[in-house]
């Protein structure tokens, strides 16, 4: 004990009293600190902090409080990619969040890559880590990551607006604040980044084709800009509680492809069709599909009502806001059409709730007469019929829940 705190026989009663007071005060302060770290059933101390509301919601919806002892070694099994294996992206995110709160508060976790990892997965991992780091001392060790991926991860600053153009990659990242001010509707920062990302794609093609004077044709230039615009319009329209969205463009010089990743927390796509204020016409269409699926016993473990609603919401003219204007409900289908105009080898994955919809050139958008008029439809089956089961490789029921929407688009440049 420090000399100043030892009570000596020679101390006067006043001095004894003051020293005792100080000792008690220090003891109380240490106890308070200890109380902030309570014990998890595993014996690890739980860090007593809360993530931002959206991340807490993500954790709660996946019941991570019941996951038992968190593992320090977190394996990225198989192809850790949103398109190929979304479960294998969401699981490690949740494991990281679980470890941060209930794992060892001093030793960092280790992410071990068993196969490969996509840019979208790395971006999400980085986002989660920055959120954790805002609450506690935090770091992650990476094992079996390629040099190129280590380079990407070390350059990622997903929490802010930045541009990084290094040897193997070019990254444009923006945290877009959703501006809902009617009188300031021009002030949408994503439009600035849309231009930069479009120009990045143009640069990428110039480099790949060795043609520095190449210019994207109107349709392609317009398509990239428009796809980004459409998604942020959707966030504004259908996710009223979303304060921001992430927009990231990534040009991989080695793989010769461009990734555009956009995600936001908030309502899921299926949520938008479950609101009480749904117009009658829309409610009838939804009920018709759900009743048909139920009658045919389509709803099982690998295809749920949420999957069906998410797929339905993608079709032309399906919108919770159709009573405001019957021309609504084109955002997602316009987005998909634009992407495939860029390159037929494009891959898109849309993840929302427990649903992943993987779009590539195996199924295309076609016009069909459904719900009383001709509409563009993509149903992921041979007949392009939304009343039939979609291919389970394209409409996937996930093991984990994402409270919002993630859209990753990969455009090959060859």
């Amino acid at each position, binding site marked *: 004990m420090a000399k100043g705190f030892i009570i000596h026989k020679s101390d006067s009663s006043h001095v004894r009293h003051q020293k005792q007071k100080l000792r008690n005060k220090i003891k109380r302060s240490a106890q308070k600190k200890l109380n902030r770290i309570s014990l998890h059933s595993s014996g690890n101390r739980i860090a007593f902090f809360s993530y931002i509301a959206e991340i807490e919601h993500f954790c709660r919806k996946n019941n991570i409080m019941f996951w038992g002892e968190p593992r320090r070694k977190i394996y990225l099994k198989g192809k850790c990619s949103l398109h190929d294996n979304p479960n294998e992206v969401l699981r490690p995110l949740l494991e990281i969040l679980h470890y941060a709160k209930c794992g060892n508060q001093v030793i960092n976790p280790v992410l071990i890559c068993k196969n490969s990892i996509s840019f979208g997965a790395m971006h999400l991992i980085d986002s989660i880590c920055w959120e954790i780091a805002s609450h506690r001392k935090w770091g992650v060790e990476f094992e079996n990551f390629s040099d190129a991926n280590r380079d990407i991860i070390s350059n990622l600053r997903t929490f802010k607006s930045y541009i990084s153009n290094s040897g193997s990659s070019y990254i444009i990242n923006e945290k877009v604040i959703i501006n809902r001010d*009617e009188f300031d*509707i*021009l002030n*949408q920062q994503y*439009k*600035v980044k*849309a*231009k930069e990302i*479009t120009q990045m794609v143009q640069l990428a093609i110039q480099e790949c084709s060795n043609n520095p004077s190449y210019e994207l044709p*109107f*349709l392609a*230039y*317009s398509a*990239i*800009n*428009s796809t*980004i*615009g*459409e998604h*942020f*319009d959707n966030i*504004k*329209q259908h996710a009223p509680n979303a304060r921001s969205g992430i927009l990231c463009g990534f040009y991989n010089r080695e793989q010769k492809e461009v990734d555009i990743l956009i995600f936001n927390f908030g309502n899921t796509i299926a949520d938008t069709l479950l609101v009480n204020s749904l117009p009658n016409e829309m409610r009838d269409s939804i009920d018709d599909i759900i009743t048909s699926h139920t009658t045919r016993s389509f709803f099982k473990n690998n295809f749920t009502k949420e999957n069906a609603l998410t797929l339905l919401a993608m079709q032309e*003219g399906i919108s919770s806001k159709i009573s405001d*204007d*019957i*021309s*609504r409900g*084109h*955002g997602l289908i*316009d987005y998909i059409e634009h992407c495939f105009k860029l390159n037929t080898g494009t891959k898109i994955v849309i993840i929302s709730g427990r649903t992943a919809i993987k779009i590539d050139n195996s199924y295309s958008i076609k016009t069909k007469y459904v719900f*009383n*008029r*001709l509409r563009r439809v993509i149903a992921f089956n041979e007949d392009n019929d939304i009343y039939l089961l979609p291919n389970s490789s394209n409409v996937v029921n996930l093991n984990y829940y994402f409270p919002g929407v993630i859209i990753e688009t990969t455009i090959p440049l060859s």
Partner: protein
Amino acid sequence: MKTYNLNLLELINPPHTELISGRDLGETFARQKEVLSHIENGEIIIINIDAKIRAINDSFIKGFFSEIFKKYRTQDKVKTLVEIKGSEDFKSLFDKNLKLLDIIYNA
């Protein structure tokens, strides 16, 4: 014939932005410029698309035309009331959306 000119250049901020996007923006722009009133006064609406504008998304166009289509219903009629002055690419883009709106409003 009386005309009323709209300049879409107001909706971008060159050189930083070149995209016109957003259903809300389309609706608000049409409302602020009192497009329907001008049409009802017998004026032809001329939409001027400057070369600095590189992209206009479909939602903006649908938002802009939503009140016009509610009243006039067909693309043939709307085309007599609104003229697009810009590149052939933009004219095709507007045509595509007007065709879609025609299908929706006349289904």
